[in-house]
């Protein structure tokens, strides 16, 4: 009896040791893994930082239409991949729940925004522009042809692309606007 029991236990303990040893080996394998970089299999495109005017280069990595990473462009001769805290934060400009996603309208005396569509808003804005321009248009000042309106002011542009600035400048002048200013003044 005793002897057989001994044998039985001996076998069990031997097999338990064996199991332990196999676990032993597996734990080593589990530990050494390092996750793949998050930009793996993403589409890269270059951009220039929208903050200050040093003009640093950035690489935007996108996967499935979503930006996954934005970091400095090491090939860029000005920044050589480095960025400041703002440029480094560009990712949060793109992925940010505070961004405007809807066109908002505030009626006179109202205390809240209303969501509106582009189809509604554009003609409405155009009507306002026309009304004001027509009411304030000055064709002549004394004898001089001036063809301008001082009833509308345009601001901004330093955050826009050149092409956008150009169209802005063109449109504003086309409307006869002279109050045209932007960040370069301040």
């Amino acid at each position: 009896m005793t002897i057989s029991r001994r044998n039985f236990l001996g076998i069990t303990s031997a097999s338990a040791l064996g199991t332990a040893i196999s676990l032993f080996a597996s734990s080593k394998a589990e530990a050494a893994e390092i996750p793949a970089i998050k930009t793996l299999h993403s589409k890269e495109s270059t951009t220039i930082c929208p903050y200050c005017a040093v003009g640093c280069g950035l690489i935007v990595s996108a996967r499935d239409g979503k930006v996954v990473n934005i970091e400095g462009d090491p090939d860029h001769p000005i920044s050589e991949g480095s960025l400041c805290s703002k440029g480094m934060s560009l990712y949060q400009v793109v992925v940010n729940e505070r961004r405007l996603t809807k066109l908002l309208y505030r009626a006179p005396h109202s205390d809240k925004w209303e969501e509106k569509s582009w189809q509604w808003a554009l003609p409405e804005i155009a009507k306002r522009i026309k009304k004001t321009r027509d009411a304030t248009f000055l064709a002549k000042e004394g004898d001089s042809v001036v063809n301008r309106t001082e009833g509308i002011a345009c601001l901004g542009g330093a955050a826009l692309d050149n092409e956008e600035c150009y169209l802005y400048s063109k449109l504003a002048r086309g409307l006869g606007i002279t109050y045209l200013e932007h960040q370069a003044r301040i």
Partner: protein
Amino acid sequence: MKAMLIDATRCVGCRSCQIACKEWNNLPGEQTEFFAAKGYQNPRDLSAKTWTLITYNELKVNNRFEWVFGKRQCFHCQEPACATACPVRALEKTSAGPVVYHPNLCLGCRYCQLACPFKIPRFEWHSPVPKITKCTMCADRVAAGLEPACAKACPTDAIIFGERETLAAEAENRIHRNPRGYVHHVYGKDEVGGTCVMHLSNVPFAELGFSPNLPRRSLVQHVQHAMQPIPFLIAGLGIALGAISWIVNRRIELQEKEQQQCPQPTHDSPQ
């Protein structure tokens, strides 16, 4: 082995490294109010959401006013106390240099937090599935042949990345080239057995909040000294206890044989 060299004399405190770290590691912003510590420092300390931090130190050095910026992050020790402490190898010193963390193994016992001489590992206190977090030297980037996000972002090359030996030599070289511009000490070269993040400074390191008197020897040794005798202890106790028991019980046996009629001494009256 890869390492980083951080030169406080070049740092301008722009904190792009701080953001770069958050960007790459998908860490959220922290809610802060005013500045949490000296100068513009924010947040107050490293946390599960902040793995690296720039400190702002207004100092008078050689009668000259200096504003010196320090960087806090994991030192990636050559013999990390955290990795030794961890009962499950959730923290691992990789051969590439970084000390990395494997959440799938971690118990959350936080012994690493206690063990770290630099107070680096941080715990997600408010998560039901908490992790230990810390700078990983962007081990994933390093594995892919890139440099860590903070080193890449740094505009003034205050953080550089490379082979540890090269950087240690570069650090010595900088001190040698500009002996009046530096404290003659490369912090991390020898501390606690050497670290893979080394610092240069023009002010005493204690002024930047670095522990000034860390031993040159690895902290791991203190534990090893206590752990090494374990098998001897087990064997010794095994022999000693058995022998004592043999002797003692044998004597009792003999005594009992002699006084077989005697009642039990431990007999106690019930109730």
